[in-house]
């Protein structure tokens, strides 16, 4: 009997995958060349699964900001803001996020995962009810579990199902927290947010939206799905991340509720972890400024997204959603998905392989994410690679 026995099911799946001669979960990146290219096992490769939506990881302004912060403030904060204080960058970033969203305040967390963990663990307690979309991210499930609240699921993107399940709660629906995402990471589909907002309002529930994949992607000014759907005034909490459009690492929450600041004092994932490093905060601030001042980034992202979507659709692939920067091809089996994933890598394209239980409905996905920094030639190369594998060339 070993402490590792419980991991045997995981070991079995890993063995099955490795037996195919492919290791999609441990790809070594030899050298990063740009926002869209790296050297993988000695081969120049297009990065087409990195969630680098605005392509800002090599933006000169972001790099300069990070370099200056390292020189001026050091490499790390070495502790929590509760113990080591808030650097001017932390406060400025929170102020700029609140200004961007038009909210009274914002809280910055060290990762996007911790933003969900920290918010949900503090907001919900054992006597509360949370109702989450079945396809929500693991960080939401984990945050809810940490809270101890009664946890219920509703069918993915199904407003009628949400309403029915809130009805069953009776009086407990009032004050329940409903959790959804702006863009879902696996398939790239959008939540029907206006309908969800209407139901929450009618039932007295709070609406919590994770805009991790929609910040910088949706909305007239890039604030996300709540902006695009015209319901920002009906959303109670918006969580986002710095690790996608803002090309760094970290997370945040903004809220129209003045009491948001209280979360800092009740959130263990906020209190008991080191605060974001100065360079991370500085580059995230620079990226947010770029997002706000340069709408052409969003336009290029959508042009590239439509180009890839239409290209793969034209080849006959079944895709996971309407056009969005997440373009997921649905395949018939794990073996077929592995064949495509490895075939793409052999042709200089690195995408994400997604298999159950990480995927909804047990689907096998080869998932691409598009960047504003991709060139048209790179997008066409990705399409050509799919075409070659499909035709057995």
């Amino acid at each position, binding site marked *: 009997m070993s402490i590792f026995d419980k991991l045997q099911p995981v070991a079995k799946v890993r063995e099955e995958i490795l037996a195919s001669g492919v290791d999609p979960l441990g790809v070594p990146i030899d050298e990063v060349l740009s926002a869209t290219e790296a050297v993988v096992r000695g081969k120049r490769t297009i990065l087409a699964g990195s969630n680098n939506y605005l392509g800002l990881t090599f933006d000169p302004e972001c790099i300069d900001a990070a370099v200056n912060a390292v020189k001026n403030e050091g490499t790390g904060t070495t502790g929590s803001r509760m113990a080591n204080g808030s650097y001017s960058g932390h406060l400025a970033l929170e102020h700029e996020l609140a200004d961007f969203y038009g909210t009274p305040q914002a809280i910055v967390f060290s990762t996007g995962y911790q933003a969900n963990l920290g918010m949900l663990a503090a907001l919900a307690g054992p006597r509360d009810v949370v109702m989450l979309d079945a396809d929500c991210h693991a960080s939401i499930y984990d945050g809810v579990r940490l809270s101890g609240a009664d946890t219920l699921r509703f069918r993915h993107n199904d407003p009628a199902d949400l309403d029915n399940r809130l009805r069953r709660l009776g009086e407990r629906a009032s004050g329940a927290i409903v959790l959804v995402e702006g863009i879902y990471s696996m398939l790239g589909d959008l939540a029907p947010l206006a309908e969800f907002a209407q139901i929450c309002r009618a039932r007295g529930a709070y609406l919590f939206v994770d805009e991790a994949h929609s910040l910088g992607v949706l909305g007239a000014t890039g604030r996300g799905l709540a902006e695009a759907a015209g319901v920002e005034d009906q959303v109670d909490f918006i969580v986002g991340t710095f690790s996608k459009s803002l090309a760094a690492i970290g997370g945040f929450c903004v809220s129209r509720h003045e009491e948001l600041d209280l979360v800092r004092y009740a959130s263990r994932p906020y209190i008991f972890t080191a605060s974001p490093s100065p360079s991370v905060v500085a580059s995230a601030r620079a990226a947010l400024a770029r997002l706000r001042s340069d709408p052409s980034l969003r336009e290029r992202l959508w042009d590239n997204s439509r180009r890839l979507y239409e290209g793969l659709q034209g080849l006959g692939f079944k895709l996971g959603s309407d056009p969005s920067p997440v373009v997921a091809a649905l395949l018939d089996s794990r073996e077929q998905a592995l064949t495509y994933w490895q075939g793409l890598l052999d042709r200089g394209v690195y995408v994400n392989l997604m298999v*159950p239980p990480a995927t909804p409905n047990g689907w096998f996905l080869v998932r691409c994410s598009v960047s504003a920094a991709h060139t048209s030639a790179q997008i066409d190369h990705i399409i050509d690679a799919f075409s070659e594998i499909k035709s057995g060339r």
Partner: protein
Amino acid sequence: MISYDQIYTHLCELLEACLDHDKHVRPDSLLVDDLGLDSVQTLEMLMDLEDRLDASIPLNVLPEVHTVDELVKALQQVVE
């Protein structure tokens, strides 16, 4: 009030619909080790059961149950 037998019948129907044909559900069947239920199947089954019983069943019941019998008893308490 819904009886143990009623919940057990619903649960067996849902389990048999999603399990391999060679798996036979008994009260003492272990959900994971005997029936091979994975985490996603478990969550989906719980949602289907909520619809059949028109009741709210929090995921919080799951960590404490290992067998079909334990799950039915836990559900009986929640549905009451």
